[in-house]
């Protein structure tokens, strides 16, 4: 039974890992660039959660997600318009990597300056310890809520991309940014909204992870690593691939820890390594 419980917990944490990666997958899928500062935005959202929680301690951190998501959408939109649109159309992919790398370094140091190097966490009150028994298994309510929220966001994103005019425009822009201009679409504006959505999703992942575990101003690299592994394992640009990749990483990490308590995320990284060797295009790698 302990193994089943471990796997279920792996799925629960994996859903969150998928959420870490889906924003990155969205950017890679639509703009064909890797945002190296993605992890720093995840940590920034967590710090914002800590600050807001300090200002209004009576409000649950999950409720604070609403203003944080709105702020991060606006941040992504403005940042894309002011910075990234200038380099996203360049044929050299290193331009975007270098720019986002520079941004990541600056953000990390600003967060270090503002919040210090001590580990922080967001407290979820009694919800953090609540559990339910399902088929004889004791499962935390909070992780279940988080998986539910992650799944709901994945489904919502899928519906937006496949069933709406905006989704069609996004997919067409991902296919050919020059030809959509002939249909009256400004690809720069599409990218602004996509970056807004990607950072909004990253902010949800950042706050939820801050509730689950400690973080510091240096945690961005670790978050980016997971997000990157999720995206590559799932298949570059594939959203459901990101979800499945996240769940696989989560399960392997927790099962690995049962075998070897000092391993940390080693087995998850090994899974990534083996996955890339066996399926270089990822599980749903249609876009590579």
């Amino acid at each position, binding site marked *: 039974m302990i193994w089943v419980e471990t796997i279920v917990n792996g799925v629960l944490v994996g859903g969150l890992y998928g959420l870490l990666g889906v924003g990155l997958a969205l950017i890679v899928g639509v703009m064909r660039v890797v945002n190296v500062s993605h992890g720093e935005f995840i940590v920034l959202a967590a710090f914002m959660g800590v600050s807001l929680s300090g200002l209004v301690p009576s409000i649950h951190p999950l409720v604070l997600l609403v203003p944080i998501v709105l702020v991060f959408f606006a941040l992504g939109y403005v940042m894309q318009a002011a910075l990234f649109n200038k380099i996203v159309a360049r044929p050299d992919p290193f331009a975007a990597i270098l720019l986002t790398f520079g941004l990541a370094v600056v953000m990390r140091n600003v967060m270090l300056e503002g919040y210090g190097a001590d580990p922080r966490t967001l407290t979820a009150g009694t919800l953090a310890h609540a559990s339910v028994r399902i088929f004889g298994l004791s499962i935390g309510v909070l992780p279940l809520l988080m998986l539910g929220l992650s799944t709901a966001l994945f489904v919502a994103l899928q519906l937006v991309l496949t069933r709406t005019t905006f989704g069609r425009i996004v997919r*067409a822009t991902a*296919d050919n940014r020059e030809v959509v201009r002939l*249909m009256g679409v400004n690809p720069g504006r599409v990218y602004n909204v996509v970056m807004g959505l990607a950072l909004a999703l990253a902010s949800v992942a950042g706050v939820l992870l801050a509730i689950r575990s400690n973080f510091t101003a240096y945690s961005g690299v670790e978050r980016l690593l997971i997000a990157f592994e999720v995206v590559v394992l799932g298949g570059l640009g594939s959203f459901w691939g990101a979800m499945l990749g996240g769940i696989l990483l989560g399960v392997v990490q927790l099962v690995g820890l049962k075998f070897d308590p000092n391993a940390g995320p080693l087995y998850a990284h090994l899974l990534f390594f083996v996955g890339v060797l066996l399926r270089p295009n990822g599980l749903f790698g249609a876009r590579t």
Partner: protein
Amino acid sequence: MTLLEVRGLDAFYGDFQALFDLDLEVRAGETVALVGANGAGKSTFLKCLVGLVETKRGVIRFSGDDITATPAERISQLGLSLVPEGRLLFPSLTVEENLMMGALHRRPGAWTFDSVYEIFPILRERRRQSPNSLSGGQQHMVAIGRALMSNPKLLLCDEISLGLAPMVIEQIYQSFARIGSAGASIVLVEQDVKRAAAAADRVYCLLKGRVTLHGSARDLSFDELCRAYFGA
């Protein structure tokens, strides 16, 4: 009435000049063929019209308005629509979704899903498929349908017959008669002089970025066109 008027157009790719002092006119309701060998500047000219290539000198007037510096995003709203060389469909979208993209900023007019499916019935059957699963000819039909969905005043077709079987080319050319009768003017960019001249009211021949001959398709002989085409 003149619909499109181009005067003294120069276009460059970096330091390379692709078009030299080009003059061209399209009247309302007519079909104009632009013929020339590979590298003559035909596609560059169409890209200048829709704002995908910047012009250095010259003026482009459409329906009396100067559109020389108009960005590509606004061109379709003015009534100019391009069927690009190589189709350039959106593979992530179905056939019908590709048509919907053409209708994003549609002007009032005759072209709807039904009228596009009427001239290309096969597309109705394939409307839920990816364009990648269609034959080259069917993909051309999607590209034409996508351009028509905005209800253009002027339809620009770039190398529409390239790589297609004669029977498919025939079917596509037959659709131009219906498109013309619905009110749109057409510019056909072609390497196939005979076919383009037969379908057009007037012909322009381009050689190395310059117009070497132009006139009524009825008045120009095939030999004259061939000489202008090859620069003989």
